[in-house]
């Protein structure tokens, strides 16, 4: 037995206790109470979590006002969430001043839009057919919202508002901004100095100023640019501003992708006799765009949040309809927190979902890459 020889050798030395293995329980607890500092942090965190959960639970559930009207909520003086406010104002907050009986139209448009988005998020469906899908969906959404066809009554853009408007501004902004951005990126990485300079000046000018200023410019100056007799819709002005803004930011992202495509790809395309546009379309851009999908999704999240700024030039986006609901004379000053929390949740759910998708795509693309290397 090995033990015997060991003891024989160590026989003269005082017996040492074997190092005490850490018990399983301690191992589990070590990250929490490993050092005094860590223990203090753990207790501070636990206390904070307790306060947050207890506070939220009390506000949302135990102290909440479930039934009643503005007066009941006013009497409670903000001790708990005022659910009647949400119940009474939900449809207004989501659809704004769109005619009440026609709410199914923006609702359907949003569903169509979300459906198209989910389809285009699944890598299996990535093909040029997506372009046609989006074209159809955009036209269908436009017809649904504006009406005038198929016996639908005409609803002017001035009464569009709420969540459909936010979705529309950000997705149309991204779609057109994407086209503009790719063109700008190609121009900026062009070998022709004049074209490069034009692109650089445009991109840097737009990126150097805040979105608010571009919105202002679009809403004040765009009408002045138009020839006589052409009026330009307020919604369209904001949309143009967002497209310009999106284009400049997307251009920089796409340029990063273009730079990541090895030079050999350009040369191989040229060796096959492909011209500039053909080699860009068939060889370079597909590879470049694939790389930039995750940052593009992040840009989209940013634009979805930035569409809130259109309220500054007087459009009724989702944040604005929520604020209008809170300013309703009957509810004035009663449900301030409720409105903002509701709006924040809607934005957070959407942004978080898109963010998780971006991380998923990033992981997926990464594994694809490593397969390519090893195989």
């Amino acid at each position, binding site marked *: 037995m090995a033990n015997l020889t060991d003891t024989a050798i160590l026989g003269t030395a005082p017996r040492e206790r074997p190092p005490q293995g850490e018990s399983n329980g301690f191992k589990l607890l070590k990250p929490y109470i490993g050092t005094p500092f860590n223990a203090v942090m753990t207790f501070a965190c636990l206390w904070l979590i307790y306060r947050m959960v207890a506070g939220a639970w009390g506000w949302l559930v135990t102290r909440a006002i479930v039934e009643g009207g503005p007066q009941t909520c006013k009497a409670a003086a903000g001790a708990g969430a005022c659910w009647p406010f949400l119940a009474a104002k939900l449809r207004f907050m989501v659809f704004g001043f769109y005619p009440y009986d026609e709410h199914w139209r923006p609702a359907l448009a949003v569903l169509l839009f979300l459906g198209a988005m989910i389809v285009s998020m699944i890598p299996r469906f990535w093909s040029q057919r997506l372009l046609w899908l989006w074209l159809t969906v955009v036209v269908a959404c436009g017809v649904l919202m504006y009406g005038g066809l198929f016996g639908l009554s005409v609803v002017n853009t001035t009464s569009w508002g709420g969540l459909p408007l936010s979705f529309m501004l950000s997705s149309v902004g991204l779609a057109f901004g994407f086209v503009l951005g790719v063109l700008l990126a190609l121009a900026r990485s062009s070998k022709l100095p*004049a*074209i490069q300079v034009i692109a650089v000046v445009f991109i840097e000018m737009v990126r150097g100023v805040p979105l608010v200023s571009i919105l202002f410019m679009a809403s004040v*100056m765009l009408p*002045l640019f138009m020839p006589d007799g052409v009026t330009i819709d307020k919604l369209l002005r904001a949309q143009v501003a967002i497209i310009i803004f999106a284009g400049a930011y997307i251009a920089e992202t796409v340029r990063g992708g273009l730079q990541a495509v090895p030079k050999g790809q350009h040369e191989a395309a040229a060796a096959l006799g492909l011209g500039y546009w053909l080699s860009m379309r068939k060889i370079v851009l597909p590879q470049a765009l694939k790389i930039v999908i995750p940052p593009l999704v992040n840009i989209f999240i940013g634009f979805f949040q930035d569409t*809130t700024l259109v309220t500054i030039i007087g459009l009724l986006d989702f*944040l604005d309809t929520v604020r209008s609901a809170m300013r309703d004379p009957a509810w004035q000053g009663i449900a301030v927190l409720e409105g903002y929390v509701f709006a924040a949740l809607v*934005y957070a759910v959407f942004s978080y979902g898109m*963010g998780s998708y971006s991380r998923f795509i990033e992981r997926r693309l990464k594994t694809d890459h490593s397969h390519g290397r090893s195989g």
Partner: protein
Amino acid sequence: MANSASSPVRLLYDVRVRAVLYQVVAVALVLGIGLYLFGTVSRKLAEQNIATGFDYLSRPAGFVISQSFISYDSGNTYGRAILVGLLNTIWVSVFAVILSTVLGLVVGIARLSRNPLLSTLALLYVEALRNVPLLLYLFLWYALIVAVFPPVREAWQILPDVFLSNGGLIMPSIRWSAAHTGVLASATIGIVLAFVVAAFMRRHRVASGHARAAWPFVLAALFVPPLIGFLLFQPDLVVNWPEKGRFRITGGLQVTPEFTALLVGLGLSASAGIAEIVRAGILSVGRGQWEAARSVGLHDRQTMRLVVLPQALRVIIPPLTSSYLSTFKNSSLAIAIGYPDLVMVSNTTMNQTGQAIEGIAIFMLVYLGMSIAISMLMNWYNARVALVER
């Protein structure tokens, strides 16, 4: 062959000729659009009898601004009003950048903590701030400030002569004069001098190998110039005490709720981004660096300060620059809650004079100039810390 190469059709297939042609067409197109727009705009402005030019800048503004750092009243010119707005923009941006950097550093390090509770809480903080629009937070903070604090008439007196209400925080201040500006300037000189002395002492230590206590010299460099400035300018220390009237509090230094809401909103939302930047930067430094530092006998804090952070900074600085830039640009959201920044003052000016194009041109140029200045400054710093490849 020479014959056909020089024919005009053949010439079109020459790559160099084409390149020139494309560029000429592009430039002509841009110039054409520009000229057309300019023509339309000036014709329309003439039709609507709107004056053009920047003469209005020297006319009296006639509106008040709730917060200004240089003396300003409604009798001053539009130009001065816009300057006040610009200073307000810079003021809130600087504080927001400092706040976001400190918070972002703390949260970024907390994200890397081995304590799962702490790192999860930090993640929650980041996600909660990143996934909700900044404008919503601005409205929310502003509404909370107005709701939580009492009206001015019932202002809380938290310290003698310090009042807190939904009209803002009001505290005693020193009546400012040119002499004070002189002292401030000499204090700035002192700070710069302290840095120079510290850098000099460090270089000396590295070159000679003799460690000499540097702090007395640095302290002297820091405090002697303001002391001289104080003796030289002899500023009066007249305190401007706030006085509580029946409806409002007059005098003293006032921190407005608009400023606070904007500062907190900008600072918090930028801190979430900075936390992620810091985290990515620290993670980019390989484990081997930690192990090597430990094996030469550095302890954790020294490793962080001397080995990891200098390397992480290279990764951190470029995205940090764009974060600072967007904080500066996002301060233009001030107009939504009524903080008198550059955009808001310009907007008031545009509404009064009707000269929208000039107003927009001014604030766009200012933002553009400041953005370029900040990115040049940060690029210079980045070049200093960048890895010098041999």
